[in-house]
């Protein structure tokens, strides 16, 4: 037997992914669910441009085993892509889509959608549907631990991509449509020990509990979308979901704090710094799960830290990021009739008779919201926030039946009239003035959940409502490229670079698709392989 050669390449390709590296993402890597901590959805990569985007070409496809409606967005570190599905994670060669390792969590007692992974150090983290945070050695897929942070017996399940901070992993909870008590939690990145937990619905008797009724223990306000993070102030910005039952608020008269809200949370302690509630006492299932985009802008002549929030209730908000103070808002959509507008304090002024009724009541926007959890893209160079929006009205029905948690009871339901389907648009706004600069209308059945990723070169990548990857000019909305993936798209794209080549990846319902600029394939000689 031949002796094996000593290690020649000492430089480690897979350096540990430090907190500092996470703060610098995205660059060639895409290290967090949102790309960066701030949720801006903008890559600095410039190899693919408005001039050459027409030369994009598919490079590889990865059929995710057993996938049905993939929601996850990949993360990429140094040429390795980590992609999750229900209770499973794959490490792929980001140039070729070939599997390096995979981990299937056979212990999970539930199946549900999964939105993605987080990386820190040598570890990659993801949540099982039954709320265990799994820590794996990202080089080998070796399991370090799986720590429980929620119990499905309490009506909770888990789908959010974890957020890795300096030494903690932040996790959220889902299940608010069936009655549960939402919370987010921080687990120690090394040991998995829970460091803090912050509930999004107060306990009976605590401040805020007076805004609920009899079912406060099952109030919901789930935290199923990863939050954003300001490293300078060590503050997490996390959104909360609807109060339960979704479509009947007769038993929970009041604002139902802290549902349908944005929470600013101290990342070390879990303490709430402030909250802003977009839809008090919601009857329409308008979770606030859309990204809090953290930006610095020139506001009335002075630099100001603000947060943009495109809400499911139809309005685009600008808030002061340090205090939560309302600054301005504007409609995202034209089909908006549940509220007359937003008052000076940021509270909606509802129109009468726009709650769900037993007979059914037509209300705009629809239950899927004016937008949702799909990513947005903010480009400071153009001052444009691009958002995927849905123009749709639904017939909302309600039921005053005694709520029973854990029985699929939502207090009613909603959906469009068959003869009045919705329509998706990409819209680019100046969020400081409210100007709509351009829009790109889509065809399709109003079924997708694709979001946006921009580039410094002036592109927007997205999925459309017909299953295409699309590329638009971010300044004008001009179409530049499209590719039919063969199934509906429910996730947001990413872009990254390996060995000097920029790639774009998007998942459709079943598979990952990766693109780069066309280059002729060079013939590869049959490799000189000797097998001993």
């Amino acid at each position, binding site marked *: 037997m031949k002796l094996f*050669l000593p290690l020649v390449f000492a430089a480690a390709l897979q350096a540990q992914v430090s907190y500092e590296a996470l703060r610098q993402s995205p660059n060639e890597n895409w290290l967090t669910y949102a790309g960066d901590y701030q949720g801006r959805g903008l890559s600095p990569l410039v190899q693919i441009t408005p001039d050459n985007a027409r030369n994009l070409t598919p490079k590889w496809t990865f059929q995710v085993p057993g996938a049905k409606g993939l929601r996850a967005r990949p993360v990429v570190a140094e040429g390795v892509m980590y992609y999750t599905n229900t209770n499973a994670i794959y490490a792929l060669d980001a140039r070729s889509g070939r599997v390096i*390792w995979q981990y299937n969590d*056979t212990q999970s007692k539930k199946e549900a959608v999964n939105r993605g992974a987080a990386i820190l150090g040598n570890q990659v983290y993801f949540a099982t549907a039954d709320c265990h945070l799994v820590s794996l*050695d990202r*080089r080998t897929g*070796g399991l370090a631990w*799986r720590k429980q942070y929620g119990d499905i017996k309490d009506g909770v399940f888990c789908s959010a991509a974890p957020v890795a901070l300096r030494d903690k992993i932040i996790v959220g909870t889902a299940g608010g449509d069936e009655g549960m008590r939402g919370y987010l939690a921080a687990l120690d990145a090394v040991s998995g020990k829970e460091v803090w937990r912050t509930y999004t619905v107060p306990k009976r008797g605590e401040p805020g509990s007076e805004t609920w009724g009899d079912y406060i223990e099952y109030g919901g306000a789930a935290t199923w979308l990863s939050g954003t993070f300001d490293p300078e102030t060590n503050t997490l910005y996390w959104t909360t979901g609807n109060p339960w039952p979704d479509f009947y608020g007769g038993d929970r008269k009041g604002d139902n704090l802290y549902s349908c809200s944005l929470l600013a949370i101290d990342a070390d302690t879990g303490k709430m710094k402030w909250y802003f509630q977009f839809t008090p006492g919601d009857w329409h299932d308008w979770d606030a799960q859309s990204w809090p985009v953290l930006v610095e802008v020139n506001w009335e002549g002075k630099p100001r830290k603000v947060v943009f929030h495109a809400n499911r209730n139809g309005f685009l908000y600008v808030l002061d990021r340090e205090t939560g103070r309302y600054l301005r808002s504007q409609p995202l959509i034209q089909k908006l009739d549940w509220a007359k507008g937003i008052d000076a304090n940021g509270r909606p002024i509802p129109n009468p008779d726009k709650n769900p009724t037993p007979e059914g009541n037509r209300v705009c926007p629809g239950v899927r919201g004016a937008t949702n959890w799909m990513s947005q893209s903010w480009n400071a160079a153009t001052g444009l926030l691009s958002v995927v929006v849905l123009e749709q009205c639904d017939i909302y029905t309600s039921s005053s039946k005694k709520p029973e948690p854990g029985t699929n009871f939502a207090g009613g339901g909603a959906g469009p009239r068959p003869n009045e389907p919705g329509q998706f648009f990409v819209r680019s706004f100046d969020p400081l003035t409210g100007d709509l600069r351009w829009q790109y209308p889509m065809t399709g059945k109003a079924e997708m959940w694709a979001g946006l990723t921009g580039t410094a070169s002036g592109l927007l990548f997205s999925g459309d409502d017909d299953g295409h990857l699309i590329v638009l000019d971010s300044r004008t909305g001009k179409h530049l490229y499209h590719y039919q993936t063969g199934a509906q798209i429910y996730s947001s794209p990413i872009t990254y670079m390996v060995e000097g080549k920029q790639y774009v990846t998007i998942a459709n319902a079943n598979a990952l698709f990766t693109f780069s600029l066309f280059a002729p394939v060079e013939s*590869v000689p049959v490799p*000189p392989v000797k097998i001993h």
Partner: protein
Amino acid sequence: MGKLIGILVPVLALAQHGKDDEKARHLFMGDAARIEAGRKIYAGGCAGCHGPEGMGGRGPSLVERGAWHPMSDEMLFKTIQNGVGIMPAAKLPEDRGWELAAFVRSLTAPAIEMKAPGAAAAGAMLFWGRAGCSACHRIGDKGGFTGPNLSNVGRSSTLPKLRRSILEPDYERTPGFERAEVVLRDGAKLSGLVKDRTNYQLQLQLKDGTLRTLDMKQVEALDLQSTSAMPGDYGARLSREEITNLVSFLRQQSPQ
């Protein structure tokens, strides 16, 4: 052929519906003595079709799980006793039937769920010490990268597989651990494990866990070792008791 489909359908149908019901777990499951008794019954009858180690032959493999979730204990017992498709009914006395079911279950159950003899602490000492396992295998944040990571092996493997992989490492090799020497066209030489390889690309893991992703057009020569790097003489180097202790240690590996 039509009858074979008759065997498969109930298994798959069960796999679709829920989990192995813990309430229905029979007492004999995981009991080493009952499993051993079941093994003898198995060898006398079932092995003819399902193979001496349950690997399959004229009948289907009982080792490879066809689906995510196993059959319930009750269904397994009934299938044995009553037969299915062309498989004849065993019609054993009840306890014998359960012993056989316990043996069949032991072929696929995660090792951690099975009772096993041996001293895990002594096995741990062997793993981290004299047996040299940790030079190549990693558990938690200790150990090498050149063999499969065993942090979760109690969950991902079965007792028979654990024992066999120690005694006969070449019998079933884990994919991703083929050893390779690579000479690149620029003269550089690399040595590592082939995580994946096509005619166009190569994913190579170096000794320190570092991953190199290569295009095959960069590769001048690729030498592969088709045999396992794990020594095949543990059966001689370790006593029977030591092997049992090692298995006992490994079956506990499933971090929480």
